């Protein structure tokens, strides 16, 4: 084909130089119009979740390498630089020559670097979200699998439990639990795992209900496979897409829940730098030092937005049935 079209195009027109000839050929063969770079750029951006992935990648890097990335510690106090504005407001730095530190995103009311605290905050957010999500997803998927597979009273019991569970005013119970047991990272993780598990049970169960009527499941049973084996080897792979999509769509909510709890003073202990805590602290300095609260806020916004965007994309690819979530 290539040999046929090439002589044609050269014979009709005047001699063209090598390069444009080859592009002409390529566009003819593929049957597409020649695209400018910006066209392709936008196409790729729209088709693949590149920006969200980039944001999440940066967040993970920041969380993992926080001590290497930042020159100061998250609790290093520098009273000469208290409430120092971000670096681009250079007049403050000129007016305060005694302050030797430069703060990229400003400093809080005791001169701790906002950016450094945000990097360390990313660690906490990431750890809390990942651990509580994993625990929640494993429990929730297990309940959904068992309920859907066995049916009957087990199913009824599991689904009613989920119904009752969803009716609990969780935020208040979480605050109460934090006051009762004291604030700690592990309490927050347990609480969030308790929120997370009930979310996907219904969808997983629905998926299992359709899968278990398939012939290959009956055949597996005839072949003598145990219930456990059927669930793990034959049904689980069929619902894994649903589980992953649901989990991804839930990450954002968990990060927000953790931040809300911290903001209300019932989450991670106040001394620990987390984004929620930083906003809570910065609220008091809003009129004089907006950067203390605003930058962590945008960090949450950006990360949650990225996770949700990525989750949407994954859902459209893997499990379009969940579109209504």
């Amino acid at each position, binding site marked *: 084909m290539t040999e046929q079209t090439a002589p044609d195009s050269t014979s009709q027109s005047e001699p063209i130089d090598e390069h444009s000839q080859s592009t002409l050929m390529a566009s003819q063969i593929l049957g597409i119009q020649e695209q400018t770079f910006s066209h392709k750029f936008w196409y790729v951006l729209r088709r693949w979740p590149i920006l969200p992935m980039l944001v999440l990648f940066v967040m993970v890097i920041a969380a993992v390498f926080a001590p290497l990335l930042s020159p100061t510690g998250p609790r290093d106090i520098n009273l000469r630089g208290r409430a120092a504005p971000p670096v681009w407001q250079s007049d403050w730095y000129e007016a305060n020559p005694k302050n030797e530190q430069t703060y990229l995103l400003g400093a809080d009311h005791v001169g701790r670097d906002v950016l450094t605290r945000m990097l360390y905050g990313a660690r906490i957010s990431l750890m809390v979200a990942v651990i509580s999500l994993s625990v929640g997803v494993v429990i929730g998927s297990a309940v959904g699998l068992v309920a859907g597979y066995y049916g009957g009273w087990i199913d009824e019991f599991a689904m009613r439990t989920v119904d009752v569970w969803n*009716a609990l005013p969780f935020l*208040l119970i979480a605050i109460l639990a934090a*006051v009762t047991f004291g604030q700690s990272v592990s309490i927050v993780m347990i609480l969030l795992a308790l929120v997370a598990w009930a979310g996907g049970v219904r969808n997983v169960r629905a998926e299992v209900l359709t899968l278990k009527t398939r012939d290959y499941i009956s055949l597996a049973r005839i072949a003598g496979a145990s219930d456990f084996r059927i669930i793990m080897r034959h049904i689980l792979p069929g619902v894994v897409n649903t589980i992953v999509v649901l989990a991804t769509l839930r990450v954002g909510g968990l990060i927000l829940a953790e931040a809300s709890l911290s903001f209300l003073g019932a989450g991670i202990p106040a001394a620990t730098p987390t984004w929620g805590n930083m906003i809570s602290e910065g609220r008091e300095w809003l009129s004089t030092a907006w950067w203390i*609260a605003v930058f962590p*806020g945008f960090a949450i916004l950006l990360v949650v937005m990225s996770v*949700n965007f990525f989750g949407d994309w994954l859902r459209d690819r893997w499990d379009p049935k969940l579109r209504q979530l």
Partner: protein
Amino acid sequence: MRKYLIQRFFFGILSLIAATLIVFVLSRAQGDPLLLYAKPGGYGVSPEQIAALEEKLALDRPLIVQYLIWLGRVVRGDMGETLLSERPVSDVIGEKLGATMQLGLLAWIFATLVGVPLGVLSAVKRGSVWDYLGRAFALFGQAAPVFFLGILGILLFGVQLGWLPAGLRPVQDPFWPSQAKALVMPTIALGWLPAAVYLRLTRSAMLEVLDSEYVKLARAKGASGRAVIWRHALRNALIPPITVSALVLVGFLEGSVVVEAVFAWPGIGRMAVESIHNNDFPLLTGIILMFAVLYVVGSFVADVAYTIVDPRIRYDQS
């Protein structure tokens, strides 16, 4: 249908019991509640008085008996007295309920008026600027923490521009115009997330319905574009948003806790947080009971509404 409703009612009650029981156990786990009333040996309280108090409050009984006593009183409409002010819990809740309801209602109106039309618009003009605007609105609303929206609003419109009050509802003023300004920011902060939810649901349902046979038939018959969209398509596309309304309601209750903390709004949410920090467990149990009741009633109503707007739904068959 009737069987289903009875079943729903039963499990609704079960939810209420679960929620209050959790609160009951947690609040007692903090230590001897008697210490909150009177310190033994302090302020000249005699041991006999303390024993009498213990008996009066039934604190000497096992936890489950205490719970049953409380439950029995609640059924008769008595939620006990708050620890701090020693007034009936129902009175204290009643005082603050208005402010929260006002906020919740406004936020719901905002969410509906913004979310549903924008959802329709972005579905009808799919791929247009409107679609992208709508999706950006939804993406932002689902990702921004409620408290951050509030803080940002206060910083921008309260501190920098000075257009709106930076907090605090004019408390003792029942008239609307003077409150209107104070209501703007809390309403938007509380309503943005549900608006985003409504938008997304309306959009995806609308896209599906617009693709269906009966809409094509209506178009083929020559119905005007507007009539097809608003009369034929939207009716069916509204079903998903109606079903999530119960969840939206819960969102308001939880959101009100945060929003009221940010804007110093004198409502239930703020009182709930205060009651937790004050160890005022009779009040807290009452509030949580009220939250759970609202949720159960709300989801019940949404389920019933569901069968009315969509006669295809039959709960009995499943």
